[in-house]
């Protein structure tokens, strides 16, 4: 059993399948990635690579017909795969929060925005209060009636008002005018505004990890810049680590410290931003980088021949081998191990799953 | 993906094989529908019932043991027996034979009403939905006018104005029935007309008529067909009601509703005259309802894919 690689999150050999009537979709085939507190990891890949499934697995939100069939997801020192639902509920939304691609769809369409945020705040306060009450009772019984506890109604009253105040502060914090926004319904918000509301709610509990699944893909370029900027400053403030799922290499390059490249259910390469962009090792990573258009780029775009494999009957061995220009005989026999790439700094954490770089034992 | 012969082979193959190859994906579609149909119990039961109904109607003259209009007053109101399982009515006619021959009339009624109402409904609905604006408003107001007529009242008005015959009853029902399909077709046409593939075909230079006929119509037709199957039961009941009231089929035509009406006065002691055609109506309507439910389930895209 290898030592802990990331002190916040360590996903090891994660396997997820979906049982559909067309067959079993082997969505995740042994995913490996990790992060430390406060870091930003970008998971990049194309359609069907499994990046969203990975994110949902961390939140244990995979439902029928999907299920986790193997591996571990260590969050600090607990394996999320093994935890029961009630413990997970305490973690979701508090220690791990998530924002999605379509923020308007994630909000309750018949509740005003302000009311929804207040509801969120009060939920959190209740669960925090219940923990506190247990502690306070213990103290009170030793010292007599607690000073602030003789007006229970009053306390509830002041709590309600201050929840609204917190909500207004939050909206202001994410750059929205609370006077205008708190009375709007979700469908009246623009994409950018709705995403700000989601970020506000997600970060309100100061989570240790924020999972962002394509948070800006549905937004205009200038709004995307605003949101990324906002996210940048807020997570610094709350010291939240960010797991950013995206297909946009530009977003990953500007926001993240580390990158995990996924293809057809595996992380094929992992490393620091510098390592991945300046020294890509896996043939897929190289192909991907050469295919991305860039303002000012003078070389011709290169494409990757072939198409993404069918995950019901994926290719044997390395799933990329049918499209790989460096294919070798061993590539269809076994899956390559996910190993450190030699010859680079420890801090780069450069790992790759490819027979071209396997160190013979 | 099953193995198919290579394209080159099929291009040179005898024409039937080539025909089948070209229709490959369409056949797959049909095969898939059949597969789903087999898995849907409602559709199966409904199909069986309706299948029996249609077979009986088809072979009615061969199946009916006696002449349905031959009277024998000496044997009137005989109870069901081995020779006459459904008994005899007040004119000595064999009820079984009348019910069997009546199925033919029911089939004719359904067929004609369906053709007329679907044709009018689709034309009005698709034109209204596709063009929108003023055309839509006018057509929909016309539809509203027709929809406002209660079917039976309209039929009675027809009977009062013209002679009460089966043909007039059919016309009366069709005149109200089409409105249901017009609204459905219009709703579908509105959904379809804003789809990118319609814009794409316009860009290629297709005329409005072509687009409505060959692109909008195929997409709008399934809910209409499903609705038709579901309404078939109602249509039969309405025709039977008209027959019951004497406004539809006239004696001695053995239309089921008319037979039920015949037996009204004899219900207490000679229940068989009303009971058997009544059961026939009930079972047939049930069959259509089950079939309609089943078809709706089959066409539901979530189950399909």
């Amino acid at each position, binding site marked *: 059993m290898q030592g802990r690689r990331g002190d916040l999150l360590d996903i090891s050999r994660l396997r997820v399948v979906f049982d559909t009537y067309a067959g079993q979709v082997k969505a995740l085939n042994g995913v490996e990635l990790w992060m430390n507190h406060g870091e930003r990891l970008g998971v990049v890949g194309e359609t069907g690579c499994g990046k969203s499934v990975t994110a949902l697995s961390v939140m244990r939100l995979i439902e029928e017909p999907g299920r986790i069939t193997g591996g571990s997801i260590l969050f600090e020192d607990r394996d999320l795969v093994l935890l029961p639902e009630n413990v997970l509920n305490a973690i979701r939304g508090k220690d791990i929060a998530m924002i999605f691609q379509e923020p308007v769809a994630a909000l309750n369409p018949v509740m005003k925005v302000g009311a929804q945020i207040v509801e969120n705040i009060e939920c959190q306060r209740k669960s925090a209060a219940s923990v506190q009450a247990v502690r306070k009772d213990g103290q009170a019984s030793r010292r007599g009636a607690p000073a602030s506890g003789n007006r229970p109604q009053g306390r509830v009253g002041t709590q309600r008002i201050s929840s609204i105040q917190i909500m207004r502060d939050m909206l202001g914090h994410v750059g929205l005018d609370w006077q205008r926004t708190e009375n709007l319904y979700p469908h009246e918000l623009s994409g950018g505004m709705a995403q700000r509301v989601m970020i506000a709610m997600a970060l309100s509990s100061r989570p240790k990890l924020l999972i962002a699944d394509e948070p800006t893909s549905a937004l205009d370029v200038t*709004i995307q*810049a605003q949101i990324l900027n906002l996210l940048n400053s807020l997570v610094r403030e709350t010291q939240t680590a960010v797991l950013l799922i995206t297909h946009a290499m530009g977003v990953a*390059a500007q926001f993240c410290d580390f990158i995990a490249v996924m293809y057809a259910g595996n992380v094929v390469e992992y490393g620091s931003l510098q390592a991945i962009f300046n020294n890509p090792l896996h043939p897929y990573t190289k192909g991907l980088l050469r295919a*991305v*258009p860039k*303002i000012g780029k003078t070389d011709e775009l290169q494409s990757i021949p072939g198409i993404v494999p069918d995950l019901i009957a994926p290719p044997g061995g390395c799933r990329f081998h049918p499209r790989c220009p460096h294919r070798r005989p061993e590539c269809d026999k076994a899956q390559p191990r996910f190993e450190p790439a030699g010859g680079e700094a420890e801090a780069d954490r450069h790992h790759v799953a490819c027979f071209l770089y396997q160190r013979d034992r | 993906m099953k193995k198919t012969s290579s394209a080159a082979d099929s291009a040179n193959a005898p024409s039937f094989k080539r025909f089948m190859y070209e229709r490959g994906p369409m056949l797959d579609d049909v095969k898939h529908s059949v597969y789903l149909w087999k898995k849907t119990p409602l559709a199966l039961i409904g199909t069986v019932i309706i299948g029996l109904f249609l077979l009986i109607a088809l072979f009615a003259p061969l199946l009916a043991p006696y002449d349905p209009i031959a009277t024998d007053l000496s044997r009137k109101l005989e109870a069901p027996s081995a020779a006459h399982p459904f008994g005899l009515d007040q004119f000595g006619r064999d009820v079984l034979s009348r019910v069997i021959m009546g199925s033919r009339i029911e089939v004719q009624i359904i067929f004609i009403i369906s053709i007329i109402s679907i044709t009018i409904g689709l034309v009005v609905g698709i034109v209204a939905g596709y063009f929108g604006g003023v055309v839509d408003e006018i057509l929909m107001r016309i539809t509203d006018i027709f929809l406002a007529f209660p079917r039976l009242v309209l039929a009675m008005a027809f009977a009062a104005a013209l002679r009460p015959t089966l043909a007039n009853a059919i016309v009366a029902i069709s005149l109200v029935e089409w409105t249901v399909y017009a609204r459905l077709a219009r709703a579908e046409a509105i959904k379809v007309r804003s789809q990118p593939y319609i814009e794409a075909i316009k860009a290629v*230079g*297709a005329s409005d008529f072509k687009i409505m006929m060959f692109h909008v119509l*195929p997409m709008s037709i399934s809910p209409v067909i499903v609705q038709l199957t579901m309404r078939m039961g109602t249509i039969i009941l309405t025709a039977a009601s008209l027959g019951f009231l004497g406004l539809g089929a006239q004696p001695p035509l053995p239309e089921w509703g008319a037979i039920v009406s015949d037996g009204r006065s004899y219900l207490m002691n000679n229940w068989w005259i009303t009971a058997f055609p009544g059961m026939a109506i009930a079972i047939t309507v049930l069959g259509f309802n089950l079939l309609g439910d089943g078809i709706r389930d089959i066409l539901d895209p979530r189950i399909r894919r």
Partner: protein
Amino acid sequence: MQATTERENRDILIQANHLKKLFAVKKNFYSRPLYVKAVDDCDFSIRKNTVFGIVGESGSGKTTLGRVILRLIEATGGAVVFDDTDLMSLSGQELRLFRRRMQIISQDPYNSLHPRKVVKKLIGEGLKIHFQLSSQEIDERVKNILTLVGLREEHMYRYPHEFSGGQRQRIAIARALVLKPEFIVLDEPTSALDVSVQAIILKMLKELKRDFALTYMLITHDLAVIDYMADDVAVMYLGQIVEMGSKDDIFSRTAHPYARLLIDSVPPPAPSEHWSGKILSGEIPSPIHVPSGCRFHPRCPQAKDICAKEEPVLSELQPGHFAKCHFPLNS
């Protein structure tokens, strides 16, 4: 871009003058209609065998412009001249036949092909309308065009849902090409596709343009794609063209503050390049109640008093480079 010599005149395929499209919006039956100024007084020309890029965000009107050019949406005002023919003057039948020369490839590969028709019918449809061909000849042409876009003969008999997004775009391209058009509007042709598939499609579009002497109008929000494909560019904001010029003009000598902020907002896919981080604040205003004077003034970092009062004119800063601003950058 305004032709000044005979030679340049002959080179222009599309000339658009004062194009305007307003959509009426009514709150209820009795209220007076309000107008969405989707396209407001756009003038430009597209030279033969070039790619004319239109860049903008939501509400810029670029999608509407693409359709107005082809008369898929009727313009409220203005004219489009396609190679000496005034498009607005064509009757229904004339327009339908004229469409052979100008095609469109739209954004959504999943909905731009009729779901109940096989590929052969989808592509053959246009051929039936515009050419008198036997069914064998139609089959031949369909086969050839499919090969040209990288698909195979057996794909002719399949339904759209059996193909991936990239393949569907190829089918859409084949459908457009088989008519031998001169001009194709590409409306976000690769926005819904993966990066590697996008690369294939863009390269293919470039080759096809070269091989068949096509002219493109490329509508997109992606500036990197514009850099890769376009020769001339127009930047749109709230229905107006705010800057227009060659690609170099736009990227290296950016004149309009909005265009500058737009380019700066794009996160470069390279860690070494530091994102300049200048952010455009605020949201796009409603296209019904557009700001007075210069439409960009509420969000413009260098707005002065005159910007709220007087609408700037699209003026030529250098030959072929236009900007609609009282205080263009680099002037």
